[in-house]
Protein backbone atom coordinates (compact mmCIF):
# COMPACT_ATOMS: atom_id res chain seq x y z
CA UNK A 1 0.00 0.00 0.00
CA UNK A 2 1.55 3.30 -1.13
CA UNK A 3 0.98 6.54 0.76
CA UNK A 4 2.14 10.01 -0.10
CA UNK A 5 1.70 13.29 1.73
CA UNK A 6 3.05 16.53 3.09
CA UNK A 7 4.91 16.41 6.40
CA UNK A 8 3.87 18.04 9.66
CA UNK A 9 6.90 17.69 11.92
CA UNK A 10 6.89 17.77 15.72
CA UNK A 11 9.45 17.08 18.47
CA UNK A 12 9.88 14.46 21.21
CA UNK A 13 7.25 13.32 23.73
CA UNK A 14 4.18 14.55 21.84
CA UNK A 15 1.64 13.50 24.47
CA UNK A 16 -1.97 12.44 24.11
CA UNK A 17 -3.13 15.59 25.91
CA UNK A 18 -1.84 17.79 23.10
CA UNK A 19 -2.96 15.36 20.38
CA UNK A 20 -6.50 15.61 21.74
CA UNK A 21 -7.03 17.67 24.91
CA UNK A 22 -9.26 16.08 27.56
CA UNK A 23 -11.82 18.86 27.23
CA UNK A 24 -12.88 17.12 24.01
CA UNK A 25 -13.13 13.61 25.46
CA UNK A 26 -16.88 14.01 25.72
CA UNK A 27 -16.74 13.44 21.95
CA UNK A 28 -15.92 10.06 20.46
CA UNK A 29 -16.28 10.05 16.66
CA UNK A 30 -13.16 10.53 14.51
CA UNK A 31 -14.84 13.40 12.62
CA UNK A 32 -15.65 15.41 15.77
CA UNK A 33 -12.28 14.69 17.37
CA UNK A 34 -10.37 15.64 14.20
CA UNK A 35 -11.53 19.26 14.50
CA UNK A 36 -9.38 19.58 17.64
CA UNK A 37 -6.47 17.35 16.68
CA UNK A 38 -3.07 18.72 17.82
CA UNK A 39 -4.84 21.87 19.02
CA UNK A 40 -2.61 22.50 22.05
CA UNK A 41 0.68 21.98 20.21
CA UNK A 42 -0.23 23.46 16.80
CA UNK A 43 -3.51 25.38 16.51
CA UNK A 44 -3.04 25.64 12.71
CA UNK A 45 -3.01 21.87 12.17
CA UNK A 46 -6.69 20.93 12.22
CA UNK A 47 -7.67 23.73 9.82
CA UNK A 48 -4.89 23.16 7.29
CA UNK A 49 -4.18 19.42 7.26
CA UNK A 50 -4.93 17.74 3.92
CA UNK A 51 -6.06 14.17 3.37
CA UNK A 52 -2.97 11.99 3.05
CA UNK A 53 -0.63 14.26 5.05
CA UNK A 54 1.97 12.59 7.24
CA UNK A 55 2.93 13.39 10.83
CA UNK A 56 6.64 13.02 11.56
CA UNK A 57 7.79 13.21 15.18
CA UNK A 58 10.62 12.45 17.58
CA UNK A 59 10.81 9.95 20.42
CA UNK A 60 7.93 8.61 22.51
CA UNK A 61 5.11 9.87 20.29
CA UNK A 62 1.71 9.44 21.95
CA UNK A 63 2.94 9.18 25.53
CA UNK A 64 0.49 9.60 28.39
CA UNK A 65 -3.13 8.58 28.41
CA UNK A 66 -4.58 5.38 26.93
CA UNK A 67 -7.21 7.45 25.12
CA UNK A 68 -7.89 5.90 21.75
CA UNK A 69 -9.35 9.30 20.88
CA UNK A 70 -5.74 10.32 20.04
CA UNK A 71 -5.14 8.01 17.05
CA UNK A 72 -8.84 8.37 16.12
CA UNK A 73 -8.42 12.17 15.93
CA UNK A 74 -5.30 11.80 13.77
CA UNK A 75 -6.98 9.30 11.48
CA UNK A 76 -10.14 11.42 11.36
CA UNK A 77 -8.03 14.42 10.28
CA UNK A 78 -7.06 12.45 7.19
CA UNK A 79 -3.46 11.77 8.20
CA UNK A 80 -2.30 8.74 6.26
CA UNK A 81 0.61 7.69 8.44
CA UNK A 82 2.71 8.68 11.46
CA UNK A 83 6.48 8.27 11.28
CA UNK A 84 8.32 8.71 14.58
CA UNK A 85 11.69 7.95 16.13
CA UNK A 86 9.70 5.85 18.62
CA UNK A 87 6.15 5.44 19.94
CA UNK A 88 4.71 5.11 23.44
CA UNK A 89 3.38 1.58 23.73
CA UNK A 90 -0.33 2.18 24.33
CA UNK A 91 -0.47 4.58 21.38
CA UNK A 92 1.34 1.99 19.27
CA UNK A 93 -1.26 -0.68 20.07
CA UNK A 94 -4.15 1.72 19.59
CA UNK A 95 -2.92 2.85 16.17
CA UNK A 96 -2.52 -0.76 14.99
CA UNK A 97 -5.93 -1.68 16.39
CA UNK A 98 -7.81 1.11 14.63
CA UNK A 99 -5.87 0.86 11.37
CA UNK A 100 -3.71 4.01 11.54
CA UNK A 101 -0.39 3.12 9.87
CA UNK A 102 2.68 3.95 11.98
CA UNK A 103 6.36 3.46 11.31
CA UNK A 104 9.42 3.81 13.53
CA UNK A 105 12.34 5.25 11.61
CA UNK A 106 14.76 7.55 13.49
CA UNK A 107 16.89 8.40 10.47
CA UNK A 108 13.95 9.41 8.29
CA UNK A 109 12.68 11.60 11.13
CA UNK A 110 16.05 13.30 11.61
CA UNK A 111 16.38 14.10 7.90
CA UNK A 112 12.83 15.29 7.29
CA UNK A 113 11.44 18.79 7.68
CA UNK A 114 7.94 20.21 7.87
CA UNK A 115 6.58 20.72 4.37
CA UNK A 116 8.64 17.90 2.80
CA UNK A 117 6.72 15.29 0.85
CA UNK A 118 7.17 11.68 1.89
CA UNK A 119 6.06 8.58 0.07
CA UNK A 120 5.65 5.45 2.14
CA UNK A 121 5.33 1.85 1.01
CA UNK A 122 3.71 0.12 3.97
CA UNK A 123 4.20 -3.34 2.53
CA UNK A 124 7.98 -3.04 2.37
CA UNK A 125 8.37 -0.43 5.12
CA UNK A 126 10.16 1.92 2.72
CA UNK A 127 10.01 5.69 3.19
CA UNK A 128 11.20 8.13 0.50
CA UNK A 129 11.71 11.85 1.03
CA UNK A 130 10.80 13.39 -2.30
CA UNK A 131 12.75 16.62 -1.56
CA UNK A 132 16.06 14.97 -0.68
CA UNK A 133 15.53 11.85 -2.75
CA UNK A 134 16.70 9.74 0.18
CA UNK A 135 15.10 6.39 0.91
CA UNK A 136 14.84 4.68 4.31
CA UNK A 137 13.98 1.13 5.27
CA UNK A 138 12.18 0.34 8.52
CA UNK A 139 11.98 -3.04 10.12
CA UNK A 140 8.71 -4.74 9.16
CA UNK A 141 6.00 -5.32 11.77
CA UNK A 142 6.17 -8.65 13.59
CA UNK A 143 4.12 -11.29 11.77
CA UNK A 144 1.49 -11.51 14.50
CA UNK A 145 0.88 -7.76 14.44
CA UNK A 146 0.91 -7.73 10.64
CA UNK A 147 -1.95 -10.25 10.85
CA UNK A 148 -4.02 -7.66 12.75
CA UNK A 149 -3.10 -4.93 10.28
CA UNK A 150 -3.91 -7.09 7.27
CA UNK A 151 -7.30 -7.98 8.75
CA UNK A 152 -8.07 -4.26 8.89
CA UNK A 153 -7.62 -3.83 12.65
CA UNK A 154 -8.27 -5.75 15.84
CA UNK A 155 -12.06 -5.95 15.52
CA UNK A 156 -12.15 -7.63 12.07
CA UNK A 157 -9.22 -9.82 13.21
CA UNK A 158 -11.15 -10.91 16.31
CA UNK A 159 -14.39 -11.50 14.36
CA UNK A 160 -12.46 -13.87 12.10
CA UNK A 161 -11.01 -15.67 15.12
CA UNK A 162 -14.41 -15.95 16.82
CA UNK A 163 -15.95 -17.34 13.64
CA UNK A 164 -13.11 -19.84 13.38
CA UNK A 165 -13.82 -20.97 16.93
CA UNK A 166 -17.56 -21.45 16.34
CA UNK A 167 -17.08 -23.46 13.17
Amino acid at each position, binding site marked *: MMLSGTVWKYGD*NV*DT*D*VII*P*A*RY*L*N*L*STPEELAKHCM*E*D*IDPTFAGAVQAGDIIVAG*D*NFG*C*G*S*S*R*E*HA*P*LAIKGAGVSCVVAR*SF*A*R*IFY*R*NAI*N*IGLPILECPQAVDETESGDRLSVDLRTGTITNERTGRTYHTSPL*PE*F*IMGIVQSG*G*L*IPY*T*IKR*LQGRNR
Partner: protein
Amino acid sequence: MGHTLAEKIIADHLLNGPAEVWPGDLVEVHVDLVLANDITAPIALREFEKLGVQRVFDPAKVVLVADHFTPNKDIKSAEQCAQVRRFARELGLPHYFDVGRMGIEHVLLPEQGLVAPGDLVVGADSHTCTYGALGAFATGMGSTDIAVAMATGQTWLRVPETIRIVYYGQLQPWVGGKDLILYTIGKIGVDGARYMAMEFAGPTVDTLSMDGRFTMANMAIEAGGKAGLFACDETTRAYVHGRVKRPFREYQADPDARYARVLEIDASTIEPQVAFPHLPENTRPVSQVGEVRIDQAVIGSCTNGRLEDLRIAAAILRGRRVHPDVRCIIIPGTQQVYLDALREGLIETFIEAGAAVSTPTCGPCLGGHMGILAAGERAVSTTNRNFRGRMGHVDSEVYLAGPAVAAASAVLGRIAHPDEL
Protein backbone atom coordinates in the same frame (compact mmCIF):
# COMPACT_ATOMS: atom_id res chain seq x y z
CA MET B 1 18.14 -18.60 34.10
CA GLY B 2 15.37 -17.21 36.29
CA HIS B 3 12.46 -14.89 35.60
CA THR B 4 11.21 -11.49 36.62
CA LEU B 5 7.84 -10.90 38.29
CA ALA B 6 6.27 -9.81 34.99
CA GLU B 7 7.55 -12.88 33.13
CA LYS B 8 6.31 -15.28 35.80
CA ILE B 9 2.79 -13.83 35.94
CA ILE B 10 2.47 -13.73 32.14
CA ALA B 11 3.80 -17.32 31.85
CA ASP B 12 1.01 -18.55 34.14
CA HIS B 13 -1.67 -16.81 32.04
CA LEU B 14 -0.74 -18.16 28.62
CA LEU B 15 -3.58 -19.43 26.46
CA ASN B 16 -1.45 -22.40 25.56
CA GLY B 17 0.35 -22.60 28.85
CA PRO B 18 1.77 -22.48 31.29
CA ALA B 19 5.15 -22.28 29.59
CA GLU B 20 8.35 -20.30 29.93
CA VAL B 21 8.33 -16.82 28.35
CA TRP B 22 11.14 -14.40 27.59
CA PRO B 23 11.22 -10.68 26.81
CA GLY B 24 10.24 -10.00 23.23
CA ASP B 25 7.90 -13.01 22.95
CA LEU B 26 4.47 -12.14 21.54
CA VAL B 27 1.98 -14.15 23.54
CA GLU B 28 -1.76 -14.56 23.99
CA VAL B 29 -3.02 -14.60 27.55
CA HIS B 30 -6.13 -15.00 29.69
CA VAL B 31 -7.04 -11.93 31.72
CA ASP B 32 -8.44 -11.94 35.27
CA LEU B 33 -10.08 -8.52 35.13
CA VAL B 34 -11.01 -5.96 32.45
CA LEU B 35 -11.63 -2.29 33.25
CA ALA B 36 -12.97 0.79 31.49
CA ASN B 37 -14.19 4.23 32.58
CA ASP B 38 -16.72 6.79 31.39
CA ILE B 39 -14.47 8.23 28.68
CA THR B 40 -12.86 5.03 27.37
CA ALA B 41 -15.91 2.74 27.72
CA PRO B 42 -18.11 4.50 25.13
CA ILE B 43 -15.59 3.70 22.37
CA ALA B 44 -15.04 0.21 23.79
CA LEU B 45 -18.79 -0.47 23.76
CA ARG B 46 -19.06 0.73 20.15
CA GLU B 47 -16.28 -1.70 19.14
CA PHE B 48 -17.75 -4.46 21.34
CA GLU B 49 -21.02 -4.23 19.40
CA LYS B 50 -19.16 -4.66 16.13
CA LEU B 51 -17.88 -8.03 17.38
CA GLY B 52 -21.45 -9.29 17.28
CA VAL B 53 -21.24 -11.07 20.64
CA GLN B 54 -24.16 -10.93 23.05
CA ARG B 55 -22.30 -11.12 26.36
CA VAL B 56 -19.01 -10.39 28.05
CA PHE B 57 -16.72 -13.33 28.78
CA ASP B 58 -17.51 -13.19 32.51
CA PRO B 59 -19.75 -10.45 33.96
CA ALA B 60 -17.97 -10.63 37.32
CA LYS B 61 -14.64 -9.86 35.67
CA VAL B 62 -15.63 -6.71 33.82
CA VAL B 63 -15.49 -3.48 35.82
CA LEU B 64 -16.90 -0.15 34.66
CA VAL B 65 -16.30 2.99 36.70
CA ALA B 66 -17.79 6.40 35.96
CA ASP B 67 -15.04 8.56 37.42
CA HIS B 68 -13.52 10.95 34.89
CA PHE B 69 -16.22 13.49 34.04
CA THR B 70 -18.50 12.62 36.95
CA PRO B 71 -20.65 13.83 38.58
CA ASN B 72 -21.59 14.57 34.96
CA LYS B 73 -19.86 17.79 33.98
CA ASP B 74 -22.00 18.53 30.94
CA ILE B 75 -24.70 17.05 28.71
CA LYS B 76 -22.30 15.15 26.48
CA SER B 77 -20.60 13.57 29.49
CA ALA B 78 -24.00 12.71 30.93
CA GLU B 79 -24.86 10.93 27.70
CA GLN B 80 -21.59 9.00 27.75
CA CYS B 81 -22.28 7.88 31.32
CA ALA B 82 -25.85 6.95 30.43
CA GLN B 83 -24.53 4.75 27.65
CA VAL B 84 -22.12 2.97 30.01
CA ARG B 85 -24.83 2.57 32.67
CA ARG B 86 -27.24 1.07 30.14
CA PHE B 87 -24.61 -1.40 28.93
CA ALA B 88 -23.83 -2.46 32.50
CA ARG B 89 -27.52 -3.07 33.20
CA GLU B 90 -28.26 -4.89 29.97
CA LEU B 91 -25.30 -7.22 30.36
CA GLY B 92 -25.82 -7.67 34.08
CA LEU B 93 -22.41 -6.44 35.20
CA PRO B 94 -22.25 -6.50 39.01
CA HIS B 95 -19.18 -4.22 39.13
CA TYR B 96 -20.52 -1.01 37.68
CA PHE B 97 -19.73 1.91 39.98
CA ASP B 98 -21.79 5.08 39.71
CA VAL B 99 -21.84 8.41 41.58
CA GLY B 100 -22.40 7.92 45.30
CA ARG B 101 -20.80 4.49 45.35
CA MET B 102 -17.88 5.02 43.05
CA GLY B 103 -14.35 6.20 43.45
CA ILE B 104 -11.38 6.91 41.26
CA GLU B 105 -10.96 3.54 39.57
CA HIS B 106 -7.38 2.81 40.65
CA VAL B 107 -8.13 3.66 44.27
CA LEU B 108 -11.46 1.82 44.16
CA LEU B 109 -10.60 -1.55 42.62
CA PRO B 110 -7.92 -2.56 45.15
CA GLU B 111 -10.04 -1.18 48.01
CA GLN B 112 -12.99 -3.33 46.89
CA GLY B 113 -10.79 -6.41 46.65
CA LEU B 114 -11.38 -6.74 42.92
CA VAL B 115 -7.68 -7.12 42.13
CA ALA B 116 -5.63 -9.90 43.71
CA PRO B 117 -1.90 -10.56 43.78
CA GLY B 118 -0.78 -12.52 40.73
CA ASP B 119 -3.68 -11.31 38.57
CA LEU B 120 -3.30 -10.21 34.98
CA VAL B 121 -5.40 -7.08 34.56
CA VAL B 122 -6.02 -4.93 31.51
CA GLY B 123 -7.76 -1.57 31.66
CA ALA B 124 -8.70 1.17 29.25
CA ASP B 125 -6.85 3.67 31.36
CA SER B 126 -3.12 4.22 31.33
CA HIS B 127 -2.86 4.18 35.13
CA THR B 128 -4.10 0.59 35.31
CA CYS B 129 -0.46 -0.15 36.16
CA THR B 130 -1.34 0.95 39.73
CA TYR B 131 -2.31 -2.64 40.64
CA GLY B 132 1.30 -3.73 40.25
CA ALA B 133 1.58 -2.59 43.87
CA LEU B 134 -0.36 -5.74 44.78
CA GLY B 135 1.99 -7.99 42.84
CA ALA B 136 -0.35 -8.16 39.84
CA PHE B 137 0.61 -7.64 36.21
CA ALA B 138 -1.64 -4.77 35.22
CA THR B 139 -1.38 -2.62 32.14
CA GLY B 140 -3.28 0.10 30.29
CA MET B 141 -4.61 -0.34 26.79
CA GLY B 142 -6.98 1.45 24.45
CA SER B 143 -10.69 1.00 24.06
CA THR B 144 -10.55 -1.46 21.15
CA ASP B 145 -8.17 -3.77 23.00
CA ILE B 146 -10.51 -3.61 25.99
CA ALA B 147 -13.58 -4.35 23.84
CA VAL B 148 -11.90 -7.54 22.65
CA ALA B 149 -10.79 -8.48 26.17
CA MET B 150 -14.35 -7.93 27.46
CA ALA B 151 -15.69 -10.25 24.78
CA THR B 152 -13.05 -12.96 24.89
CA GLY B 153 -11.28 -12.73 28.25
CA GLN B 154 -8.06 -12.73 26.26
CA THR B 155 -5.49 -10.33 24.93
CA TRP B 156 -2.06 -10.33 23.34
CA LEU B 157 1.11 -9.00 24.93
CA ARG B 158 4.72 -8.56 24.10
CA VAL B 159 6.58 -9.94 27.11
CA PRO B 160 8.42 -6.88 28.43
CA GLU B 161 12.00 -6.51 29.49
CA THR B 162 12.21 -5.50 33.15
CA ILE B 163 14.08 -2.69 34.87
CA ARG B 164 14.68 -3.44 38.53
CA ILE B 165 14.99 -0.44 40.80
CA VAL B 166 16.38 -1.11 44.25
CA TYR B 167 15.88 1.56 46.91
CA TYR B 168 17.90 1.55 50.12
CA GLY B 169 18.32 3.96 53.02
CA GLN B 170 15.86 5.56 55.41
CA LEU B 171 13.48 8.15 54.04
CA GLN B 172 13.72 11.75 55.22
CA PRO B 173 10.68 13.28 56.94
CA TRP B 174 7.86 14.21 54.49
CA VAL B 175 9.32 11.99 51.77
CA GLY B 176 7.02 9.25 50.45
CA GLY B 177 6.19 7.06 47.47
CA LYS B 178 5.46 10.07 45.26
CA ASP B 179 8.92 11.50 45.85
CA LEU B 180 10.59 8.14 45.15
CA ILE B 181 8.79 7.70 41.86
CA LEU B 182 9.26 11.31 40.73
CA TYR B 183 12.96 11.04 41.56
CA THR B 184 13.15 7.79 39.58
CA ILE B 185 11.39 9.28 36.55
CA GLY B 186 13.74 12.25 36.77
CA LYS B 187 16.64 9.81 36.60
CA ILE B 188 15.46 7.56 33.74
CA GLY B 189 13.23 9.97 31.80
CA VAL B 190 9.67 9.78 30.51
CA ASP B 191 10.64 7.02 28.10
CA GLY B 192 13.26 5.38 30.32
CA ALA B 193 11.07 2.31 30.79
CA ARG B 194 9.24 2.46 27.45
CA TYR B 195 7.66 -0.95 26.68
CA MET B 196 9.24 -2.36 29.87
CA ALA B 197 8.09 -3.52 33.27
CA MET B 198 9.49 -1.74 36.30
CA GLU B 199 10.18 -3.88 39.36
CA PHE B 200 10.42 -1.90 42.60
CA ALA B 201 12.45 -3.53 45.38
CA GLY B 202 14.84 -2.96 48.24
CA PRO B 203 14.69 -2.27 51.97
CA THR B 204 13.19 1.21 51.56
CA VAL B 205 10.12 0.06 49.66
CA ASP B 206 9.82 -2.99 51.91
CA THR B 207 8.90 -0.55 54.68
CA LEU B 208 6.58 1.50 52.46
CA SER B 209 2.83 1.32 53.12
CA MET B 210 0.45 -0.04 50.48
CA ASP B 211 -0.73 3.52 49.79
CA GLY B 212 2.86 4.55 49.05
CA ARG B 213 3.34 1.53 46.80
CA PHE B 214 0.15 2.27 44.85
CA THR B 215 1.50 5.77 44.21
CA MET B 216 4.77 4.39 42.84
CA ALA B 217 3.24 1.68 40.63
CA ASN B 218 0.68 4.22 39.39
CA MET B 219 3.37 6.38 37.79
CA ALA B 220 5.28 3.60 36.01
CA ILE B 221 3.46 4.75 32.86
CA GLU B 222 5.02 8.21 33.33
CA ALA B 223 8.39 6.55 32.57
CA GLY B 224 6.78 4.83 29.57
CA GLY B 225 6.44 1.59 31.55
CA LYS B 226 4.01 -1.16 30.69
CA ALA B 227 3.69 -2.21 34.32
CA GLY B 228 5.21 -1.37 37.70
CA LEU B 229 5.41 -4.28 40.09
CA PHE B 230 6.13 -5.03 43.73
CA ALA B 231 6.61 -8.54 45.07
CA CYS B 232 4.03 -9.75 47.58
CA ASP B 233 4.97 -9.42 51.25
CA GLU B 234 3.37 -9.08 54.69
CA THR B 235 2.17 -5.55 53.86
CA THR B 236 0.41 -6.83 50.72
CA ARG B 237 -1.13 -9.75 52.59
CA ALA B 238 -2.41 -7.51 55.37
CA TYR B 239 -4.01 -5.22 52.75
CA VAL B 240 -5.78 -7.91 50.74
CA HIS B 241 -6.89 -9.82 53.85
CA GLY B 242 -10.66 -9.44 54.14
CA ARG B 243 -10.88 -7.69 50.77
CA VAL B 244 -9.97 -10.34 48.21
CA LYS B 245 -12.50 -13.16 48.47
CA ARG B 246 -10.92 -15.67 46.07
CA PRO B 247 -7.73 -17.71 46.00
CA PHE B 248 -4.69 -15.96 44.53
CA ARG B 249 -1.08 -16.67 43.88
CA GLU B 250 1.92 -14.75 45.19
CA TYR B 251 4.97 -14.26 43.03
CA GLN B 252 8.57 -13.39 43.78
CA ALA B 253 11.21 -12.58 41.18
CA ASP B 254 13.89 -15.24 40.85
CA PRO B 255 17.28 -14.26 42.30
CA ASP B 256 18.86 -15.03 38.90
CA ALA B 257 16.22 -13.22 36.83
CA ARG B 258 17.57 -11.33 33.85
CA TYR B 259 17.02 -7.56 33.88
CA ALA B 260 17.46 -5.00 31.11
CA ARG B 261 18.86 -2.71 33.77
CA VAL B 262 19.29 -2.63 37.54
CA LEU B 263 19.25 0.76 39.20
CA GLU B 264 20.25 1.28 42.84
CA ILE B 265 18.99 4.40 44.52
CA ASP B 266 20.09 5.73 47.91
CA ALA B 267 16.70 6.94 49.10
CA SER B 268 18.12 8.58 52.22
CA THR B 269 19.42 11.47 50.12
CA ILE B 270 16.09 12.15 48.41
CA GLU B 271 14.29 15.36 49.33
CA PRO B 272 10.63 15.96 48.56
CA GLN B 273 10.48 16.24 44.76
CA VAL B 274 8.73 18.64 42.40
CA ALA B 275 8.28 17.99 38.66
CA PHE B 276 8.27 21.22 36.66
CA PRO B 277 6.15 21.78 33.57
CA HIS B 278 5.66 20.16 31.10
CA LEU B 279 7.03 16.67 31.73
CA PRO B 280 7.10 14.45 34.82
CA GLU B 281 10.85 13.96 34.28
CA ASN B 282 11.59 17.65 34.99
CA THR B 283 12.15 16.94 38.66
CA ARG B 284 13.98 19.03 41.22
CA PRO B 285 14.42 18.69 44.97
CA VAL B 286 12.05 21.15 46.63
CA SER B 287 15.03 23.10 48.04
CA GLN B 288 16.00 24.01 44.48
CA VAL B 289 12.59 25.11 43.26
CA GLY B 290 13.08 28.84 43.89
CA GLU B 291 10.12 31.22 44.12
CA VAL B 292 7.15 29.65 42.32
CA ARG B 293 3.86 31.34 43.25
CA ILE B 294 0.79 29.17 42.87
CA ASP B 295 -2.90 29.81 42.25
CA GLN B 296 -4.20 26.34 43.02
CA ALA B 297 -3.24 23.23 44.97
CA VAL B 298 -4.87 19.90 44.12
CA ILE B 299 -4.60 16.98 46.53
CA GLY B 300 -6.13 13.76 45.26
CA SER B 301 -6.24 11.54 42.12
CA CYS B 302 -5.44 7.89 41.45
CA THR B 303 -1.87 8.78 42.39
CA ASN B 304 -2.40 10.42 45.79
CA GLY B 305 -6.06 10.27 46.77
CA ARG B 306 -5.76 7.63 49.49
CA LEU B 307 -6.23 7.94 53.23
CA GLU B 308 -2.51 8.20 53.99
CA ASP B 309 -2.23 11.10 51.54
CA LEU B 310 -5.12 12.92 53.20
CA ARG B 311 -3.62 12.31 56.64
CA ILE B 312 -0.36 13.90 55.53
CA ALA B 313 -2.20 16.89 54.07
CA ALA B 314 -4.26 17.24 57.25
CA ALA B 315 -1.17 17.09 59.46
CA ILE B 316 0.10 20.16 57.63
CA LEU B 317 -3.18 22.04 57.27
CA ARG B 318 -4.32 21.46 60.86
CA GLY B 319 -4.53 24.81 62.63
CA ARG B 320 -3.33 26.67 59.52
CA ARG B 321 -5.08 28.56 56.73
CA VAL B 322 -4.79 28.14 52.99
CA HIS B 323 -3.05 31.23 51.54
CA PRO B 324 -5.57 33.86 50.42
CA ASP B 325 -4.35 33.71 46.80
CA VAL B 326 -4.69 29.91 46.57
CA ARG B 327 -7.64 27.64 45.85
CA CYS B 328 -6.92 24.35 47.60
CA ILE B 329 -9.00 21.44 46.27
CA ILE B 330 -8.92 18.12 48.10
CA ILE B 331 -10.46 15.04 46.51
CA PRO B 332 -10.74 11.78 48.46
CA GLY B 333 -10.20 8.86 46.08
CA THR B 334 -13.30 6.86 46.98
CA GLN B 335 -16.46 7.13 49.05
CA GLN B 336 -14.76 4.92 51.65
CA VAL B 337 -11.66 7.14 51.78
CA TYR B 338 -14.02 10.13 52.12
CA LEU B 339 -15.92 8.48 54.96
CA ASP B 340 -12.75 7.39 56.76
CA ALA B 341 -11.34 10.90 56.41
CA LEU B 342 -14.59 12.33 57.74
CA ARG B 343 -14.60 10.03 60.78
CA GLU B 344 -10.97 10.87 61.53
CA GLY B 345 -11.76 14.56 61.43
CA LEU B 346 -9.60 15.23 58.39
CA ILE B 347 -12.45 16.76 56.39
CA GLU B 348 -13.17 19.19 59.21
CA THR B 349 -9.48 20.13 59.24
CA PHE B 350 -9.54 20.80 55.50
CA ILE B 351 -12.67 22.93 55.62
CA GLU B 352 -11.44 24.91 58.62
CA ALA B 353 -8.22 25.56 56.73
CA GLY B 354 -10.18 27.02 53.84
CA ALA B 355 -9.87 24.11 51.41
CA ALA B 356 -12.64 22.81 49.15
CA VAL B 357 -13.42 19.10 49.51
CA SER B 358 -14.92 17.30 46.52
CA THR B 359 -16.70 14.04 45.94
CA PRO B 360 -14.38 11.49 44.27
CA THR B 361 -13.57 12.36 40.65
CA CYS B 362 -10.61 12.42 38.28
CA GLY B 363 -11.88 15.94 37.40
CA PRO B 364 -9.01 18.42 37.53
CA CYS B 365 -6.17 15.94 36.96
CA LEU B 366 -6.95 15.74 33.26
CA GLY B 367 -8.48 19.17 32.91
CA GLY B 368 -11.99 17.78 32.92
CA HIS B 369 -13.73 19.86 35.57
CA MET B 370 -13.63 20.75 39.31
CA GLY B 371 -10.57 22.99 39.15
CA ILE B 372 -9.60 24.08 35.63
CA LEU B 373 -6.77 26.58 35.29
CA ALA B 374 -6.96 29.91 33.41
CA ALA B 375 -4.20 31.16 31.10
CA GLY B 376 -1.09 31.99 33.10
CA GLU B 377 -2.23 30.17 36.25
CA ARG B 378 -0.06 27.69 38.12
CA ALA B 379 -1.04 24.69 40.20
CA VAL B 380 0.89 22.40 42.46
CA SER B 381 -0.77 19.02 42.22
CA THR B 382 -0.43 15.52 43.61
CA THR B 383 -1.64 14.14 40.27
CA ASN B 384 0.51 12.33 37.71
CA ARG B 385 0.91 14.46 34.58
CA ASN B 386 2.01 18.02 33.96
CA PHE B 387 1.78 18.02 30.18
CA ARG B 388 0.98 21.31 28.44
CA GLY B 389 -2.66 22.19 29.04
CA ARG B 390 -3.23 19.11 31.18
CA MET B 391 -5.24 20.95 33.88
CA GLY B 392 -6.83 23.56 31.69
CA HIS B 393 -5.65 26.41 29.49
CA VAL B 394 -2.75 25.61 27.20
CA ASP B 395 -0.80 28.43 28.88
CA SER B 396 -1.30 27.17 32.43
CA GLU B 397 1.28 25.19 34.39
CA VAL B 398 1.19 22.12 36.63
CA TYR B 399 3.93 21.27 39.15
CA LEU B 400 3.73 17.69 40.41
CA ALA B 401 4.50 16.88 44.04
CA GLY B 402 3.47 14.70 46.94
CA PRO B 403 0.72 15.65 49.42
CA ALA B 404 3.15 17.15 51.95
CA VAL B 405 4.60 19.68 49.51
CA ALA B 406 1.17 20.37 47.99
CA ALA B 407 -0.35 21.14 51.41
CA ALA B 408 2.61 23.26 52.55
CA SER B 409 2.49 25.15 49.25
CA ALA B 410 -1.23 25.77 49.68
CA VAL B 411 -0.51 27.49 52.99
CA LEU B 412 2.47 29.54 51.83
CA GLY B 413 1.15 30.44 48.37
CA ARG B 414 4.34 29.23 46.73
CA ILE B 415 5.93 25.83 46.25
CA ALA B 416 7.45 25.00 49.62
CA HIS B 417 8.92 22.32 51.86
CA PRO B 418 6.71 21.55 54.88
CA ASP B 419 9.63 22.51 57.15
CA GLU B 420 9.28 26.10 55.96
CA LEU B 421 6.01 26.40 57.85
